[in-house]
């Protein structure tokens, strides 16, 4: 058989070639995107840089929430609480004990990871809507807990805590806004890589198996209880670090910033961005950061009515979230890709795909 020619004859092989070419395109595109993202802060005004930085912290929080809801099939209406715990951990550490903000990110992650894991244990018993209620209870409890008299000295009570703006370390030629932009971007990228590896490995497959068919998963020997609690923990960890980052970026924490509304906003971002998708977290973050401003620009009288219309519209046009929509667009584009340019390239490709024969 002529290995160089045989694959082009079958549909499956054509699709395989297109996927390979698409992957090359994708890698180049991602690289280009990263370059643009790194250049942006130097051409945008500081205010836009600030907005983008906030969007990155939301993306990190949504990544956590997505792990739980999209990849593991559990539910949470209370991730705002973990965000708050992370933010306050950072604020108290910086304000009370003068600890460097870099360490607070680690601390917030650990604290929230443990808290999430512990919450995940009783959550095993409760399913679906009832879990929604339990997590909602957690979100509701946050503002009063943060204001509580007994630890007012640490949390600053209703007045909140104010943090000074960190400057770029090692004398880098960045202003504080640009430094925070790159810090948040860096943390987000690390989280994306971690999440990607997690999801592509055994843990990820176990998580998704639990989501798709918990009984079969259990039957196959997956310790569902452990994985579900672990997922809760990891999810809370990501969101907690996001909270700590947001505290550093906004420079202010106050109990009423972390109301139920925040938890609902995170859920909205997760679903609109696209569940079960890492890029969905990023799309969703930009949605919840920028669409309210767009709605405000459209109507001063009833901006949230416009926002509600956006929500319904997005769900109608993109039932798989923005990520789902993008995937559909991408696969359509992929089908238009030409099959081969030169015989040499094709041979190289087919040599790889036919390595098993």
């Amino acid at each position, binding site marked *: 058989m002529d290995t160089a020619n045989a694959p082009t004859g079958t549909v499956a092989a054509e699709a395989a070639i297109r996927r390979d070419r698409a992957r090359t395109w994708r890698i180049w595109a991602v690289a280009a995107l990263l370059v643009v993202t790194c250049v942006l802060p130097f051409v945008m005004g500081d*205010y836009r840089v*600030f907005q983008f930085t906030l969007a990155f912290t939301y993306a990190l929080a949504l990544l956590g929430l997505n792990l739980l809801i999209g990849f593991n099939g559990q539910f949470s209406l209370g991730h705002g609480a973990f965000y708050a715990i992370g933010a306050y951990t950072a604020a108290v550490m910086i304000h009370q004990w003068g600890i460097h903000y870099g360490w607070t990110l680690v601390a917030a992650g650990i604290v929230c990871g443990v808290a999430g894991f512990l919450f995940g244990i009783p959550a095993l018993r409760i399913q679906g809507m009832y879990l929604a209620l339990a997590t909602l209870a957690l979100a509701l409890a946050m503002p009063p807990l943060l204001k509580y008299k007994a630890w007012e000295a640490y949390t600053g009570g*209703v007045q909140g805590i*104010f943090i000074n703006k960190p400057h770029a370390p090692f004398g880098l030629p960045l202003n504080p806004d640009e430094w925070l932009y790159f810090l948040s971007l860096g943390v987000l990228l690390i989280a994306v890589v971690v999440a990607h590896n997690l999801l592509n490995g055994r843990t990820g497959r176990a998580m998704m198996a639990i989501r798709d068919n918990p009984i079969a998963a259990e039957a196959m020997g997956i310790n569902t209880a452990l994985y579900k609690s672990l997922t809760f923990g990891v999810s809370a960890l990501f969101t907690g670090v996001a909270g700590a980052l*947001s505290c550093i970026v906004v420079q202010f924490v106050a109990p009423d910033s972390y109301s139920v509304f925040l938890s609902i906003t995170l859920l909205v971002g997760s679903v609109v961005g696209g569940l079960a998708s890492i890029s969905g977290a990023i799309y969703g973050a930009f949605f919840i950061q920028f669409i309210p401003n767009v709605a405000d620009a459209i109507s*001063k009288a009833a901006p949230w009515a416009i926002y509600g219309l956006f929500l319904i519209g997005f769900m109608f046009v993109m039932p798989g979230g923005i990520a789902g929509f993008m995937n559909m667009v991408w696969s359509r584009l992929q089908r238009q890709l030409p099959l081969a340019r030169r015989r040499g390239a094709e041979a190289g490709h087919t040599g790889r795909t036919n390595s098993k024969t």
Partner: protein
Amino acid sequence: MIKRNATVLFLLLAGLLVLGLAGCEKKTPGVTKTEIKIGHINPYSGPASAYGTIGRTEAAYFKMLNEEGGINGRKINFISYDDGYSPPKTVEQARKLVEQDNVLLIFQSLGTPTNSAIWQYMNDKKVPQLFVATGASKWNDPQGHPWTMGWQPNYQTEAKIYARYVVQNIPGAKIGILYQNDDYGKDYLTGFKAGLEANIASAGLSGDKAPKIVMEQSYEVSEPTIDSEVVNLKNSGANVLVNITTPKFAAQAVKKVADLGWHPTQFLNNVSISIDSVMKPAGLDASNGIISTAYLKDPDDAEWKDDASIAKWREFMQKYYPDGSLHSGNNVFGYTVAQTLVQVLKQAGDNLTRENVMKEAANLKDFEVSTLLPGIKINTSPTDFAPIEQMQLQKFDGKKGAWVRFGEVLGAN
């Protein structure tokens, strides 16, 4: 697998880049020969959206001013953004106003936590944070924060006035306090306690003759009802009730007190003295005898029925803000504070730099606005960043359906 449609995302980012660049021009801050840009942040949505009407009144006032020719030939470009009473959003909007819209100053940003979030930023950037819409006492800090100034009488001053009244008029009072568990409520509470101590000491009272706080009950804004807190307060045996509540909860509280057959001497904070929004829903009989303070004229007060300034205000509302309520004290508030800003800008003349505007804001001498109560004047100086420090006590007459002022106009002490 990471699936990213990089091309589309790239295009999206490119679009945002253009947007970002568009706002990048550096101009003289907010002022041209024909225009002054004033920034403003208000909660048009969220838990404090009831106060959004203040921003709308102010916008309407500036519209009227522009139609009458503006100030020194310049029109006011009033740029107002919604922060939903969320401090992170306030930070975002403040940065947008300062860095993208290049406003001259930010006027009447509303709320204590929200203003706290941008306090440092405004002072670092040296942009006036003028006449903030909150009565927290911390804004009067010309040394530490020379770019921030309040406007309304601060909550602690008001609470001290009530404390003094109790000490002077109700010997051995047992005091119950109902307060909202947030910055505003706690500020009043602190002021009341401090005022109580100070007045008891100066009156030389002790033992049974000295008024005591027998119970404090707080509530969260997210609670549907505060009935149980009122019941607890009644059961504490208090004969004085200090009501530190926002309008909706004030109405609920006053009504519940009456429904329980309890008749303490009630004090109500100035934030909730609207006859239409609080006293009427609570019941005119139930509200009889409640003591509060005032510095603005209430549009429903029978005393001002034929008053020229209120008539003028009504005309203004009907022409420029017809959707606004003619019964809302908030709308008189907005109207009055807008006039204060206009005075500052007039005093600055053509020298409209941020430094000079701040200097003139600290240079208001006996400035009167006709919708303020007679005798109340606005005064500021480089060491006094509290424009209004006077209030007058008033008692609600249920039969007349009006607040009756008594005593003289009290100053800060």
